[in-house]
């Protein structure tokens, strides 16, 4: 029992420096598997123009419970924050990729300190965005 408690204490203290580190290494810390992460965070949409995709992105973020923080039509970026007991901040950029195609890149952080690297939240986001883009093609009310 005593040894177990000591081992737990050791593990916990060894893990703490991971939460408290200097700025320089964190600025360049893109997480593990950068190329793989970029692929998880990116999606190409056909039959879409940048402005329509940006507006659909804003609508999707609102549907997901985000309040928009910033939007820039020239840069093609939108940022938003979701508060639901926790905090998720997300930036989405929309870039033209040839005629009728756009590349959407999203990245998010959780509770202000942790980059979201799990593919599932991004898959959920893109599924919602796809739905919004499709809905926007329907006749308006």
């Amino acid at each position: 029992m005593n040894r177990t408690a000591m081992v737990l204490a050791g593990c916990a203290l060894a893990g703490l420096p991971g939460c408290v580190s200097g700025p320089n290494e964190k600025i360049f810390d893109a997480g593990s598997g950068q190329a793989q992460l970029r692929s998880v965070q990116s999606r190409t949409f056909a039959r879409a123009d940048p402005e329509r995709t940006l507006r659909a992105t804003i609508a999707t973020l609102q549907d997901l419970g985000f309040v928009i923080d910033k939007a820039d039509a020239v840069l093609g970026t939108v940022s938003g924050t979701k508060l639901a007991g926790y905090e998720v901040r997300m930036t989405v950029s929309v870039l033209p990729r040839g005629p009728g195609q756009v590349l959407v890149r999203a990245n998010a952080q959780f509770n202000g300190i942790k980059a979201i690297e799990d593919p599932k939240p991004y898959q959920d986001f893109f599924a919602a965005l796809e739905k919004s883009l499709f809905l926007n093609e329907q006749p308006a009310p």
Partner: protein
Amino acid sequence: MARAGKSFRRGWASGVAAVGLLLLAGCGGIPAGALQLPPESPANRQRQTRTFDGITEPALLAASAAVLQDLGFVLDESETGLGVIVASKRRSARNAGEIAGKVLLGLLALQGPQPWAEAQNIRVSIVTRPAGGEFPGRVLLRATFQRVVYDSAQRIILRQQLNDDELYTAFFARLAQGVFLEARPL
């Protein structure tokens, strides 16, 4: 004596382990479903959206900014090209009943006054989009409010989206007055 020392070490190690694990838990991950469309999404959209006829997007955004200023909000961001305005205000979150209760609880527990809700940051984003299609003169406007509440020790104690029907109804009534138009539900 040796037994007391062993017991002390065990207690100390358990305490450090508990504190360390609690701190590690602070680095935990995003809840499952945080970026999934919630079942209440259509109802929220309905509550937060109104349609306006016979007005342009920029005119509706300008009227929204004026209403927000009337309500004491400060404009943080705007992007007319995408129909976005973001505004915020910081106000007191004090509640006399809660403060009295926390002071009393502190006295009863002999720990001094406990922290109470002190201040709140309220943020709102207004997003417009043209209905298009068969309704060229129609603009949809969606407002979403959220707030962060801080206690008297400046710690965050609440982070939430505001989904109260009355809030949105009152806000859209003020906006309709501002543009002299009817704000119709979706």
